[in-house]
């Protein structure tokens, strides 16, 4: 019997060609990201070897790691957001609107205070546990709110995150760690170096792994009754999804920091264009997350050259503009 994938959507959004095009765009942007910067990084300079190969060293120690960090963060934050949106059945959630990232920061602060000698990988796991606990609590709480109040959910989530953040800030203030705290929750890739971003590979891998459960997440998005009717274990899907989301948030926090609202924007734009079948949408979310974050980072580095605009600011401005445009544009489709 011929084994085929679930029905593809119409036009470019369902086709492999579209995805290959998007992947090409990511590669082009990644190349641009590597070669744009304060220090001279022309191909010529690389070939010359410069003063004892300084350009080459810069490339491998700073430029490539930075670009990789952006690609991995962009992919995984987008994927984490769309998974959360399925599990919460709400379009406005993502790790920074549900207290997930804030809880991860609290966890990281706890390790910095109580067990500063822990290896960074263990610190990330502790941060992920905090994130998981907070997200799960919030999900349980949200389940008691009628579904019609969909905008209430992110508002409550922001408040919940604010409360966690207040605790974290208070502790950080007392123990003089405020500066690190700011870096955890506001994505900044300018200080990414080799040896300081590698945990993001875990986030990237998890994002890729989530594709295996794409159909399950989509079914979960249809609701608990649909899920159980189809013989699936709703609790298990929930647990799997929340683990991915928490680990992605924790990996972001311990490396370059999470970018507020980034995943929310990417996931919503993709859902508007491609639909909500995660089997189709997940690759798009991963690729457009990488492309969008690369573009924002490049813009932030070139607009006020030689100064940098924080990537979070660019994401906020560009992202909300794109989002509003798509929201307001009347879309009519005829099947």
């Amino acid at each position: 019997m011929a084994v085929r994938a679930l029905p593809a959507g119409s036009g470019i959004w369902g086709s492999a060609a579209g995805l290959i095009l998007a992947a090409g765009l990511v590669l082009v942007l990644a190349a641009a990201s590597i070669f744009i910067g304060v220090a001279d990084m022309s191909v010529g300079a690389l070939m010359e070897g410069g003063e004892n190969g300084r350009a080459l060293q810069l490339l491998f120690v700073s430029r490539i790691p930075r670009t990789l960090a952006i690609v991995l963060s962009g992919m995984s934050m987008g994927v984490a957001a769309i998974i959360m949106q399925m599990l919460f059945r709400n379009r406005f959630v993502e790790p920074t609107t549900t207290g997930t990232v804030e809880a991860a920061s609290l966890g990281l602060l706890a390790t910095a205070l109580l067990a500063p000698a822990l290896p960074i990988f263990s610190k990330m796991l502790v941060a992920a546990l905090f994130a998981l606990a907070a997200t799960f609590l919030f999900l349980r709480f949200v389940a008691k709110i009628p579904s019609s109040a969909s905008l209430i959910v992110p508002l409550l989530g922001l408040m919940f995150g604010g409360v966690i953040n207040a605790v974290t800030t208070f502790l950080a203030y007392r123990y003089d760690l405020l500066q690190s705290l700011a870096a955890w929750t506001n994505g900044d890739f300018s200080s990414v170096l080799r040896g300081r971003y590698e945990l993001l590979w875990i986030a990237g891998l998890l994002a890729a792994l989530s594709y295996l459960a794409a159909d399950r997440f989509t079914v979960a998005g249809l609701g608990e009754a649909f899920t159980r009717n189809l013989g699936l274990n709703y609790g298990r899907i929930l647990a799997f999804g929340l683990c991915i989301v928490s680990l992605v948030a924790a990996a972001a926090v311990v490396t370059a920091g999470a970018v507020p609202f980034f995943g929310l924007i990417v996931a919503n734009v993709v859902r508007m264009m491609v639909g909500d079948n995660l089997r189709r949408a997940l690759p798009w979310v991963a690729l457009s997350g990488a492309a969008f974050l690369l573009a924002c980072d490049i813009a932030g580095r070139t607009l006020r050259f030689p100064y940098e605009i924080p990537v979070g600011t660019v994401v906020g401005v560009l992202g909300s503009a794109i989002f509003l445009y798509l929201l307001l544009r009347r879309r009519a489709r005829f099947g």
Partner: protein
Amino acid sequence: MIEIAGVSKTYEDETVLDDVSLVLPESGITAIVGPNGAGKSTLLSIIARLITPSAGAVRVDGLDVQKTKSDVLAKRLAILRQVNHVGMRLTVEELVTFGRFPHCGSRPTAEDERHVREAIAYLGLEALSGRFLDELSGGQRQRAFVAMVLAQDTNYVLLDEPLNSLDMKHAAAMMKLLRRAADTFGKSIVVVVHDINFASIYADRIVAMRDGRVVLEGTSDTFMREAVLRDIYDTHIDVREVDGHRLGLHYL
């Protein structure tokens, strides 16, 4: 055979199902009727293991629904609930394909695709199969959900008010389709309807509920009587015989 044995459901101190015992056969159409709040939806959800009963048990082909693995049951029994808040942008075809999940997981075979096509055709949704659910009318969406449940191809199909938001033509077509599924494929279809005339014309058995109890189990002949209807609905309904069907004139 679905055996419902002494099933009760209480919320806090309110009893919404009170010791219901009932046997639903392996094939044919069973209509469940009764006033609002009688417990019809609760009973259906308990049969389909979506709600845990406070007491009693339900067995489907001898399998206790609370103890049997969910994926095993999903091949025998499918349910469509009364209200389905689905805010997902899936196409009709994608939704119906998910109905095949218990059989094929994420890898539909040619056989699964045939089931999907047939279910879509059954519900007259061919022209809409590429549309997103949020681009359909309420009745079209309802038909898409029914198509999904039929694509699941289970012997037992529980439909909670499938005629909701269907126009007259599509409501009658839906009942005829269920009739055909029962007659041709020997399925057992349990359907909650409010229009007693649909129950009277299309159902093999009628189960009437009131206040969390089964008050009558019988055929159109035993159910469609003015005295019986008054007891169940607290209102007078003229019953007339038209072309061999007993019809209630509940508009008057």
